[in-house]
């Protein structure tokens, strides 16, 4: 089978336009690492076109087949009630593999270099964003998070902000010192604000 024919079939499967023959061809070839690599490249390209966020290296398929291979042997050896138990184990490990893949997907950070697409900003409200020594950014609803130090402990001049913030910070530090137990720490924080 020629490389081109396989790639065409892959493309067709991906676009949900494959016929029975093409699907069979792809399924036969999917164990091949090169084919899988091509498949994942296609996925990247497709996602790039559709501006979707994705993880190119996520290969759930291989994790699933690895789990299947490991579990298949004992399931075959034993008959009777053990067989169903074996199946259950297979199902469980497939679930684990998929979950592991999803976990990987969620944890991994995709840098802009990996995908030449503008990523949708995924910064939810609950995500901490301490990226630089001091991050200061005019807040707008949809802007990308500002990376890197824009102001190293020095606050930019912004109307209304500059005059109030030192007072707020100091009041917070002083009241913290009173309420808290670690008496020296809030003082030190307050003092370090004055050293600008």
């Amino acid at each position, binding site marked *: 089978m020629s490389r081109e024919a396989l790639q065409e079939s892959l493309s067709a499967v991906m676009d949900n336009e494959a016929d029975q023959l093409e699907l069979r061809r792809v399924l036969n070839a999917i164990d091949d690492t090169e084919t899988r690599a091509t498949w994942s490249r296609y996925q990247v390209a497709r996602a790039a076109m559709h501006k979707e966020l994705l993880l190119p290296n996520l290969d759930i398929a291989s994790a699933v087949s690895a789990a299947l291979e490991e579990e298949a042997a004992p399931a075959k050896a034993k008959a009777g009630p053990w067989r169903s138990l074996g199946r259950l184990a297979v199902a469980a490990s497939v679930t684990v593999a998929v979950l592991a893949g999803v976990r990987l997907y969620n944890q991994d950070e995709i840098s802009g270099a990996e995908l030449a697409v503008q990523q949708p900003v995924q910064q939810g409200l609950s995500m901490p964003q301490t990226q630089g020594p001091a991050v200061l950014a005019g807040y707008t609803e949809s802007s990308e998070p500002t990376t890197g130090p824009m102001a190293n402990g020095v*606050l930019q001049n912004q109307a209304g902000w500059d005059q109030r913030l030192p007072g707020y910070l100091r009041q917070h530090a002083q009241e913290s010192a009173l309420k808290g137990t670690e008496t020296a720490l809030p003082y030190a924080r307050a003092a370090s604000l004055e050293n600008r």
Partner: protein
Amino acid sequence: MRALPLLPLLLSSCMTVPALAANSSPQATDWLNKLAQAEQGQSYQGSFVYERNGSFSSHDIWHRVQGGKVHERLLQLDGVAQEVVRVDGKVQCVSRSLVSGVGAPPDSAPRVLDPLKLMSWYDLKIAGEARVADRNAVIVTLTPRDQHRYAFELHLDKQTGLPLRSLMLNAKGQLLERFQMTRLDTQDLPTDADLKASAACKPVQRSPVGAADAVVGWRSDWLPPGFELVGSSIRRDPERKSAVSSLMYDDGLARFSVFLEPVKDNAGTDTRAQLGPTVAVSRHFTTPKGKVMVTVVGEIPLGTAERVALSMRAQDVQARQ
């Protein structure tokens, strides 16, 4: 007999505590108890350094517990001489009268570190031993159980339980601030001369803060779990002639304040800033009474602070609806 209705509450709290404690070690709890006692009952003097991103400073500290009174003096040794003198937690004087109106903290008893409370929001563990300021220390880690607070690593003096080193880390494990003793003397009691404020230390002006001036008209729709209101005040700013309401929240270790101040319509944009461990987020809201700037300042992650700022609601508006 009056305590009888409280009995079920007491029993249930006894039963829930072991479940929460599953992830925390009893030794760590013991050490935190020791720390809480040391803060209230141990005299000491020494030096420490404080470091956060973009700032490094060294300080001297004198702390004397005598006759039930806690005297404390802190002095910055480099740069501008920052000085604070406190008696029983109340600020007596501050060098460089910093900003108008600040420094009249409401009189209330300092909160005591409560490991049982902390256990609900942090996993307390012993992480080994260390040597700081030529003293043996035990390392206690406080790992947050959610993303709304930072992790702490405390190195406590084995002999007294005093903190020798305190590190604050964010979710990525980056160090946000470091407090570290370089010299600690628990033998010699600080003298009166040690504790005497210098001439540069100006007595704190008690700006009119009415105890009855409770902050009303604002409530929070959402708070990170475990944070409770521990204080509120209204401060009149003589320069801007505006009343600044402040609310302070505490989870037993981390704290943040919410400031509410009426502003003119053209005043500033929504802003956020991170200064080492302290984050500041401000947002402008339009209420029937005019524009209000809500600012959250505290040692919590930026995302959490932003969510708190967004969750503040003017109560009178709510009542009308």
